């Protein structure tokens, strides 16, 4: 058995279920549409903004405003890719076909990650260009300093969110438990921790907040101890930890 065989098999699995199509399309549509909406609102509000806010205005980051919601669809995609195996009982058939558990899990993750990367990059570029079009006179250009990094970073961010979710789902197995942990975490808890002064210093080391730094072109006037790539690096460490945890548990546990 070669990894190439297993990757081909996992590609067949992922393309033959409807959830792949609807989660990924939802990620694209929500991220791009919400980004456009907020860009359009920013344009109409720009003249009434305080000067300080106008100076800090980050047109690139504004067009990624939809990602806070769009990432939830990416989370669902990552969770379902892995936890479907458990909720359907397919895991026993899959591991009987591919008894090497590292080959099984990492082939699955490789295929889903490649797909998430393609979709994430398309989403990020579409959100940027359509968002800038909405901003009209206040728009940034792709050639401006730091903008291309932010747009590529947006695609990487979405991919890493999906990977992190795959790792968590590999540990928790149940789709409901995984979604019930990840959704409130990224939608509520992370935001609360990041906005309350007492927990801000911890909150910014969470995967989404650290990883999100790469999408900012105009740095905020705060004392964040890492740069755009440093932030992404922190997010990568979270992803590695989640995947390692998922693999170790898969290797140790009975297949069910």
């Amino acid at each position: 058995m070669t990894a190439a065989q297993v990757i081909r098999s996992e590609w067949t699995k992922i393309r033959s279920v409807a959830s792949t199509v609807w989660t990924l399309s939802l990620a694209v549509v929500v991220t791009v549409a919400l980004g456009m909406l907020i860009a359009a609102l920013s344009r109409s509000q720009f003249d009434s903004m305080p000067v300080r806010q106008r100076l800090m205005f980050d047109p690139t980051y504004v067009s990624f405003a939809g990602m806070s919601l769009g990432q939830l669809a990416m989370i669902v995609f990552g969770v379902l890719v892995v936890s479907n195996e458990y909720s359907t009982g397919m895991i026993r058939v899959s591991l009987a076909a591919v008894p090497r558990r590292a080959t099984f899990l990492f082939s699955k993750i490789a295929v889903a990650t490649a797909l998430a990367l393609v979709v994430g990059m398309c989403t990020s570029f579409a959100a940027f260009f359509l968002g800038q079009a909405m901003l009209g006179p206040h728009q940034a250009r792709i050639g401006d300093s730091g903008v291309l990094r932010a747009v590529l970073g947006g695609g990487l961010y979405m991919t890493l969110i999906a990977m992190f979710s795959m790792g968590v789902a590999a540990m928790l197995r149940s789709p409901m438990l995984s979604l019930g942990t990840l959704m409130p975490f990224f939608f509520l808890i992370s935001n609360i921790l990041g906005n309350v002064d007492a927990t801000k210093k911890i909150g910014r080391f969470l995967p989404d907040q650290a990883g999100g730094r790469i999408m900012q072109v105009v740095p905020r006037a705060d004392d964040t101890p890492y740069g755009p790539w440093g932030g992404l690096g922190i997010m990568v460490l979270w992803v590695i930890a989640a995947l390692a945890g998922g693999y170790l548990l898969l290797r140790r546990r009975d297949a069910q």
Partner: protein
Amino acid sequence: MIELAGLSKRYGDKVAVDRLTFAVRPGIVTGFLGPNGAGKSTTMRMILGLDHPSAGDVRIDGRHYAQLKDPLTYIGALLDAKAVHGGRSAYNHLLCLAQSNGIPKRRVAEVLDTVGLTTVARKKAKGFSLGMGQRLGIAAALLGDPRILMFDEPVNGLDPEGIHWIRNLMKSLAAQGRTVFVSSHLMSEMALTADHLVVIGQGRLLADTSMPDFIRQNSRSYVRIRSPQRERLLDTLHESGITVVEAGGGVLEVDGGKAEQIGELAARHGVVLHELSPQQASLEEAFMQLTAEAVEYHAHADPGLGPQDRSAGWKGRAR
């Protein structure tokens, strides 16, 4: 060939499989029999490397499951017919399994044809009936054209036509020289399909014997006698060296098929008989007797319907 050596599985304090040692040989159908909860499915999952044994070892053609290159081409298994992603079509379900083991695509169409699912190959599996799901599971087992096949309760929930089909399929697979290992909790089912029998109860091996031997040892034939002149009859039989067991209600039982001999003896001594009938205990009774002590949950049936009273005289024969 599947070889188990001291295979054990514990969940906390509970022992699900207890030092099983036996071999499943090629060319015959080996029945794996035991009451519900005896550890049959757990054993099968350990054979496939899905569950980790607490102790002991299991090998497929001398190798551990994880060491098999493209395992579906060595051993095909149907564990649970419902273990399919309902949103995936039958064709794609089999295709992803084939690809993972380097099995050519045309085999997918072949096995779909074998199990009679060609017309619904592109339909989503969630619309399948239990019987169709069972057929899909069997198609997956046959995919790699393996030398060893393993089926966990394959006839459960099937209609008579489906049951008939599976019985014939298993027999023909064994006739091709393959190893066929099939579990059931029904003795009557095994009696129709299996050539060899492995019986377990509460995880322990109770019997590992050929089907004819099992029948010979366990399907006790005896003669049932009733007579108003009971004492005289007992004396007469005793003098002739025939052992009698009292079965209660004035009924006497004599082991073996000696009805003619007893009838002639009674006539010669002028003993009146009200009944003299050859009897055969069923295999189902033999199986229940064998596993009686090993059944986890007893249903407390009406006394007299249980297997215990019937068999008081022949305990110990079961092994």
